[in-house]
């Protein structure tokens, strides 16, 4: 049976027409939020009254910092305690247009030795977890022109 692909969290990214993170933008002050803020604008300088509109975020950014997880994180991180722990790599990326720093895992195969602060990376789709009938999708960062 074909497994369904479902976002690990709804509304934070889209895979249609190329992978993009989705944020929201305040129509009154142009502040951008990720994770999306649909109910209200959090800018205290905002005049208010603006609608929060969905907006795709920059495809690219630069590495603000990076680290890895050598020990298995606790639940609710999905991981099988029966399997040996494979460290993951975590990136903090400053998005090109928004200037915000967003956390994300690196694509599999990219480790701290492959990274440098300031390096250009792009956001791509990835897999957080799989079970019998669902593939839970997420976002990942990949060095531009680096290992795929």
């Amino acid at each position: 049976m074909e497994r369904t692909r479902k976002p690990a969290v709804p509304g934070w990214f889209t895979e249609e027409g190329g992978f993009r993170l989705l944020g929201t933008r305040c129509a009154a002050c142009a502040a951008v939020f990720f994770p999306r803020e649909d109910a209200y604008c959090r800018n205290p300088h905002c005049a208010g009254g603006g609608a929060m509109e969905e907006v795709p975020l920059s495809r690219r950014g630069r590495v603000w910092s990076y680290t890895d997880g050598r020990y298995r994180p606790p639940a609710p991180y999905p991981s099988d305690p029966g399997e040996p722990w494979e460290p993951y790599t975590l990136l903090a990326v400053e998005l090109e247009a928004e200037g915000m720093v967003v956390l994300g895992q690196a694509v599999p195969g990219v480790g701290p030795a492959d990274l440098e602060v300031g390096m250009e990376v792009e956001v791509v789709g990835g897999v957080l977890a799989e079970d019998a009938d669902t593939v839970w999708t997420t976002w990942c960062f990949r060095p531009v022109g680096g290992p795929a």
Partner: protein
Amino acid sequence: MTDVAVLGAGMHPWGKWGRSFVEYGRVAARAALADAGLEWRGVQSVVGAGTVRGGYPGHVAGAAFARALGWQGARVASVYAACASGAHAVAAARAQILAGQADAVLVVGADAAPKGFFAPAGGDRDDDPDWLRFRLLGATNPAYFGLYARRRMAVYGDTAEDFARVKVKNAAAGALNPLARYRKAVTAGEVAASPVVADPLRLLDVCATSDGGAALVLGSMEFARARGAADPVRIRAVSTVTPRYPRTVLDLPDIATDSGCGTGPGPAGAAVPFRASIARAAYEEAGIGPEELSLAEVYDLSTALELEWYEDIGLCGPGEGAALLGKGATALGGRVPVNASGGLASFGEAVPAQAIAQVCELTWQLRGAAGARQVPGARVGIAVNQGLFGHGSAIVAVR
């Protein structure tokens, strides 16, 4: 005048004791009351620093401690602000005293922390940023500390050896503190030989989770004088500020910072990063500057983070933390010892007790009663930390 007197300070020794947080808090409270020379029945108010993991559900901190000490009808409050809980409890007690609601207030914080990484409570909560960072990213607290450490290496040229030196310094101080969990010296070689937890940080760069309790009895200056304490240690400022928008430095437990979009040339306040703004607010309230400090207690959740605090509390300029450490300025015997108590490196985290324990240390130091780790002639101290979800905390104590 915003001063309140520290009448008493007390702790339960920190470690892994396997008992209830209520018991740690009760022991610390009894010690603080004895130090103050006050009967529990003579205290008109108790403020408990809350813990979610140990204290809720099933317990609410203020009343749990009050019941353990014996119900006596005191005013009661419970305060939760994650790592800043203890300082916010001090702020609540101080406000009651300055408002004339109580002459003497007992402040208590205690926890029984689980082993290993801190983790959110169970259940699916996809509107909770703390739950989401674990769920989607596996981003533990040390992962954030690793990000800060690697950033310092890239921007300022800090090295793993610089970070290890913080642990060596704090372990040396902790070895002199009978209340600390870890009481032996650590070498740079031992730090380097410990396993990597979150690149570039190793096990001995990151603080452990612990059990522990700490308590203070605070009172009005009039009450202190009437009881014959002419020159008590005084709390002169308590800062509990939030960040200012846009917050552009990634902080626990957020998945992203604010964007600079839409803020025009930039609102004035946002130029000061959150951690620095916490200390700045306390200095402003106290009318005291960093150059007047005798010592500081800072949240060394990681060795690299302690260097960041040097800069954030104004001991040196941005990027100069490692050089200040290298000169020995922040060690016992240096110009301004930092974490003379041994810090979290020696105590470990017992979340709601930590900020109260910091003030206990300032109290003993300013009284000249800190024994082998005494900072000679200490007159002014600051204790700083930050709580999850934008809770600031800094306390200035003077003698």
